[in-house]
Structure formats: C-alpha cells, structure tokens
C-alpha cells in the first residue's frame, strides 16, 4: 500500500509522517506519533473515546482518515496541561471523581472543551447535550456533568 505524507499541528507542535493511505487519524496518532490520549473503544463512532478537536471542531478520530487532516490544527487531551499544571477540566475531573477507569476520560474532556470553547458558561442541559456522543461505563455520568460545570465556573472566575 502506498505511503503518503501528512503534516499537521498536534497540540501546537508540527508533525510530519508518512502513513499508509486509508489510515485513520486514531491509528496515526496512537501508533505512529505516540499520542495515546485518544482511545480506541469501538471504532464505530458510538463511544466517543477517540474524540479530538480538529480546527476547533469535535471529531471522531476513528472515523477520520489521517490524510484528510493535512494542514489541520489537532488538539488532544495530552496537550492540555501547561508546564505541569493541569487544565481546569482535568483538575475538575480529578476532584469530582469524574474519572474512574479513565478510558472515556480523554474523549469526555475533549467534548467538554469543544463546548466550553464556544459556550464558556453552559447550562446543565448544554453539558448533557455536548457529552451525548460519549459513553462512560463507570461513573453514571453525574460526576462528569458536575466536573464540566465546575471547570466552567473556575474558568470564568479566573477570567474575572
């Protein structure tokens, strides 16, 4: 199978790889580039564990071909902490016990980030809607919803 060059920005740093045509972004990120924060749960679009933000929009990396991301700006949970300080969403997830086994967490955090980037003070309904494509088998969702609402409040206090 022919290899094709792909270049994109991952969490602010330039990446260039030769990948097999037809490779999913999830596969390229995890197995080629070594960012294992997006998880492969279902590879069918149903679990949301592979969610990443591409050019500001939440997408499923398991259903995205890496070649279609040439020149894109890609954000994953691995790039959220700055200088060893956790992002408010990561902090809130830990504090609220919104992560148990942790498998859904990077996808949940990306879905929450995509929401807060557009809607800094969401209602509970908006949080539920924003997380509706992500499945968690551990927490029962309520701690996750609370964590996102807490992170939104923390962010708006910092901004004030």
């Amino acid at each position, binding site marked *: *199978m022919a290899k094709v060059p792909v270049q994109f920005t991952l969490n602010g740093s330039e990446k260039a790889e030769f990948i097999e045509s*037809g490779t999913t972004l999830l596969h390229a990120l995890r197995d080629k580039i070594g960012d294992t924060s997006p998880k492969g749960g279902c590879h069918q*679009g149903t679990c949301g564990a592979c969610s990443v933000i591409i050019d500001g929009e939440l997408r*499923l990396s398991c*259903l995205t071909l890496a070649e279609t991301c040439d020149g894109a700006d890609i954000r994953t949970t691995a790039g959220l902490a700055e200088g060893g300080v956790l992002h408010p969403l990561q902090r809130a997830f830990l504090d609220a016990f919104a992560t148990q086994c942790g498998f859904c967490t990077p996808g949940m955090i990306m879905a929450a980030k995509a929401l807060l980037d557009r809607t800094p003070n969401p209602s509970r309904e908006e949080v539920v809607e924003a997380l*509706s494509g*992500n499945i968690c088998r551990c927490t029962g969702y309520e701690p996750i919803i609370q964590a996102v609402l807490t992170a939104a409040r923390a962010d708006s206090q910092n901004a004030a």
Partner: protein
Amino acid sequence: MSLALQTFSTVKDANAALQASGTRYLGGGTLVVRAANEGDVSVSSLVRVTEPSLSAVSVSGGKARLGASVTMAAITRHPELAALAPAARAVGGPAIRNMATVGGNLFAPAPYGDFAVALLALNATVAVEDGEMPVETFLAGRDTSRAVVTAVSLSLPEAESFRFLKVSRVKPKGVSVLSIAALLQRTADGTVTSARIAHGCMADRSMRAKAAEKALLGCKLTPEEIAPALAVAGEDITPITDPIASAWYRAEVLPVHLGRLLLS
C-alpha cells in the same frame, strides 16, 4: 485495513474515478469509514473532492442550496436554515454532526437518514454533475448511483407549515425508532390544502406516506378529522427490525407518533 484515498479538485475527475469497482465517495466518513473499520472489504478505494462549492450554503428568495459536503452542525448554526435545524440536530451526537454530511445522509440506510426524511417531505432536488432530480427519484435509485452528489436544493418552508419528529429511546441522542416530517399547507381556517409526509425506518430508506397525505386533504387538524389519515398511515410500509425496535413495533407506533406530530 486496506483503503486508499484519492483526492480530486473537480467533481468531473472524481466521477471518472468512481466508475472503478470497489470505489466509493468519502463524505464525512461516518458510515463508509466505519464500514471499513468493521471489516467491509467491498470498499477498497475512497474518492473525495475538494471543490469549495460542495461545502457552500446559499440562501436567496426563500430557496436554499446546500452543498453535499455541508455538515449537520453547519446547518444547525446557520441563521437562515432554522427550519432545517431540528432535522439536522436529530442526527447523532455533536462529533457525528460535525462530520455527517448532507450528501452522506441521502445514502444512509435505516435507522439512519433522518435528514433525508426532512428533504423528502420538502420535495428537495438532488444535483449531480449532469443534472438534477427530485429527491424521491434519487432515493429510489440510490443503490446504483455512481456519481458524486454535488448539492441539494429546496424551498425553505414557512415555520408553521413544516414539522419534524424523531423518536428515539436514548435521550438526547440515539438512533431512530422512526422519524417523520410533514409539510402542510392550510387555509386561514386550518383546512389542509396540501400535505407531503415522509417517514424514516418504515423501509430501508425514507418513503412518503401517500395514502395518509391524500386522506388529510380537506381536513382540519383535530383528532376526529385526522383519524382516517392515521388509519392508512401504515399502508405500503415494510419497517426495519433492529436492536432498537421490531418491524411490528414500528408499524404499531407510526400512527401514534404521526397523530402527535399533526396535533402538536
């Protein structure tokens, strides 16, 4: 997975490439990449087009043209497409809506294709490189279609004349038990003068409820007057059976939900 992606700058070149066997068009990829991930080896090559017109929305004189690559999320955010927003919002969760395209929804097998249900009720037109056809004709022949869909055009309905309903078990998202769209013109006293009703999950693709459409003519939207339409709503349907609902269940609840939509 052995898939190869070919990128073209024009629809013409993509159409030529699509004639090769095992080749399919790549829209948002939510169905076709999923199929490849699941081991579907019938697709070995994907084709995409970067022509900007495919991602464009234009609205003028009460008419809208949606490029085939326009996503459900783009429709929900577009200030002039509010009439279509409920149907676009009915598709999947937020990440799916950022990827799922108008073109891909026309090909989505039941229980998918919620947006196509709305397009069918609205009598939209589907454009390919060398012409246009009514969405009803397009849906009937989609299995043998080998051309890139470039756009969908429609007359935007008055808010009160168009109704859309998706019934699902998982809230706020979840696949359809069924979906229904109805375009109704009524006189000042509420008498129905024209009705176009489409439903999803009542076959492998969206279909019109022609007997119910006919029975509604001359009626007012009251429980008594719509009863004959509900009685014939299930004519000619062959609902799907899947883990969400059996064909029997879908046929049983269709008149109930059609009634709720008409009386809402």
